[in-house]
């Protein structure tokens, strides 16, 4: 009885493994496929991913604790999300077009191409890794 969780985990891993093998049979798999889904994600899928992205532990635990502790100032959590999307409307499409033209995959790729400096790309790499790791845990 106590081994039930282990069985569930093992079955899940086995299913994922079989699915991965099956997906390999039909499509070519490379770094582009792994990093950006072969650049084939539709608008609705990206929308859902972004919606999932902004709801983190902070939204459910940190945000409510923050609101309980400070009151009114916690309303900034609502404000910065909205402002971020307004800014994104101007910032992201040019970056997306630029990266698509040059077949870039990651943030360091972008900095390397844009500023012609591999050193800058290498400097950005740990920062963007740390940022995506931290923001997946803490930001709203």
């Amino acid at each position, binding site marked *: 009885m106590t081994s039930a969780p282990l069985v569930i985990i093992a079955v899940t891993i086995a299913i994922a493994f079989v699915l991965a093998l099956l997906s390999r049979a039909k499509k070519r798999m490379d770094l582009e496929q792994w990093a950006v889904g072969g650049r084939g994600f539709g608008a609705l899928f990206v929308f859902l991913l972004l919606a999932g992205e902004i709801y983190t532990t902070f939204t459910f635990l940190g945000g409510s604790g923050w609101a309980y502790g400070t009151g*009114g100032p916690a309303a900034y959590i*609502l404000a910065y999300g*909205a*402002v971020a*999307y307004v800014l994104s*409307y101007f910032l992201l499409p040019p970056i997306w077009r630029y990266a698509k033209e040059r077949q870039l995959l990651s943030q360091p790729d972008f900095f390397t191409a844009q500023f012609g400096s591999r050193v800058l790309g290498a400097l950005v790499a740990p920062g963007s890794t740390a940022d995506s790791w931290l923001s997946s845990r803490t930001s709203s």
Partner: protein
Amino acid sequence: MSVRTLAWIPILCIFVGVVFANRTYPIVLGMPFLFFYMVACIILTSLVMAIVYALDPANRKGE
């Protein structure tokens, strides 16, 4: 004047308008007024950006 100028509306509502909404009463829809104001700002942001997106010539070209 570009339709993109409209994006200033939510920015100004959030950064400047909030100063005048800094009060608890009246309670609207069960929320303190400041909170209601921020929620209204978010809905306004969505509406304004939807209009900007629909009218911006940059989005006409097939991508």
